[in-house]
């Protein structure tokens, strides 16, 4: 377990996430994160985009505290209750859906809270099912229920809808918006889908060369349609940031 020189991992009120000078590297050749600074306010919904291999997952894992074997340094300040949603639902195949949702919960009301979370994501009545009996979208809902039942102050999601079909993904967007409104955690959503980022987030961050390349506020209100010219111009701007030439997508 490598210790990160000069890094402090503390818990505080104030902003949900404060990252200063975060460095992570997997080899001598060069770092993946090169002194990244990032602040996420309490209850703020931030989308993180970047090219494949730009270090999005690396940043998310640093925030989740899952990268203790990776060399690096910097300040990472996250709240006490952090939940992670992975690209795969990561349900334990040998535990029924409800037991997966309440995994690690203590207290006599764990079961009740689990059932409530399941009904919140539209899986009422499936509590006794085995994970393999759920569809891909349902498994991801169960994973959402598992993260929300912990009442997180920060929800970290690494391409949670990446493996779903377009239609299911739209449904999941609606669900995530609903859950965000109800629980209001700070959210850091990693996605490769620019439209998803614009449709859901308050802010979109583009990761370039291991630092925050641009940080764009989305002021489109709650009704966001891809047909909106402002939506289109934001998309064009973000795609340019990602290095995609306009003609290619048009």
């Amino acid at each position: 377990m490598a210790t990160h020189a000069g890094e402090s991992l503390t818990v505080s009120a104030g902003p949900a996430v404060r990252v200063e000078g975060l460095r992570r590297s997997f080899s001598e050749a060069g770092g993946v994160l090169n002194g990244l600074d990032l602040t996420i306010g309490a209850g703020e919904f931030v989308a993180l985009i970047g090219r494949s291999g730009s270090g999005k997952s690396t940043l998310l894992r640093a925030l989740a505290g899952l990268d203790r074997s990776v060399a690096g340094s910097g300040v990472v300040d996250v709240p006490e209750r952090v939940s992670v949603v992975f690209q795969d639902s990561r349900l334990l195949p040998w535990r029924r859906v409800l037991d997966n949702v309440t995994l690690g919960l203590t207290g006599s009301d764990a079961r009740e809270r689990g059932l409530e979370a399941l009904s919140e994501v539209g899986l009422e009545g499936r509590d006794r099912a085995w994970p393999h009996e759920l569809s891909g979208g349902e498994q991801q809902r169960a994973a959402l229920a598992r993260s929300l039942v912990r009442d997180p102050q920060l929800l970290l999601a690494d391409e949670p809808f990446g493996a779903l079909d377009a239609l299911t993904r739209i449904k999941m967007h609606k669900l995530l918006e609903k859950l965000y409104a109800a629980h209001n955690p700070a959210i850091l959503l990693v996605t490769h889908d620019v439209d998803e980022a614009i449709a859901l987030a308050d802010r979109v961050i583009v990761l370039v060369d291991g630092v925050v390349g641009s940080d764009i506020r989305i002021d489109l209100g709650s009704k966001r349609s891809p047909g909106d010219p402002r939506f289109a111009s934001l998309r064009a701007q973000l795609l340019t940031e990602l290095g995609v030439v306009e003609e290619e997508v048009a």
Partner: protein
Amino acid sequence: MATAAVEAPITGVVPGKATDERVVRRRLGPGPRVPGTLWIGPVLLLGLWFLASATGVLDPRTLSEPWVVVETAQRLIADGRLPEALATSAYRAALGLVIGVVVGLALALVSGLSRAGEALIDGPVQVKRAIPSLALMPLLILWLGIGEPMKVITIALGVLIPIYIHTHNGLRGIDSRYAELAETVGLGRGAFVRHVVLPGATPGFLLGLRFAVLNALLSLVVVEQVNATSGIGHMITLASSYGQTEIIVVGLVVYALLGLVADGIVRFTERKALAWRRTLESH
């Protein structure tokens, strides 16, 4: 098979016609489980034996007729010799099995969950694995004499190895992503073992248990024939010196039944304990 699965009538099917005439595509898996099929092979073999004896193809001195074996079995049960021998043998096997399973499981857990444990335990177990338990018997006889402890420990040693190997294997094969998940939901060491390690290693453990049961039986046969004053093996050894093939066959049948019953119990447990799995076996 396919017809039994029909729940609702399908539009287009002639009313009143109970069979579902969907074209069921051939599947690559073995297909759904048909109850009782496990017995077809043994019953066929039994029929052959019967036929060979009845037609005189099989000399009774080579192998007694099935009906003589049945009579002998009834006599042995009536005079209490068979129940007593069976109880002794079953107890020996069960005791050795339990000790072997507990020790093998404990070793696998310690060795699987800590590098220090692995360094201490894995090597010796692999060395032991290379020496058949039965080869250790002379040494065990020297140390423990020819009484029950020697017999039970020989059986336990034979059981320990497959339990250890397969549980350890299953444990190491658990996807590390589940360990990551356990960290993010804040599981402690104990809860991690309970929710992730043990269930994840169960398929391996149960596979090991099936080998272990057969090993226990094998060891039982050998320890009982080398030097025993009681048990099925003793009964067979005695019969052998008097040329009583019918008693030998009864003994063999009892061994076979012991093996089948034990294996059946393990398989049943497997199906119940691994209901969460979607495998060729269950679908």
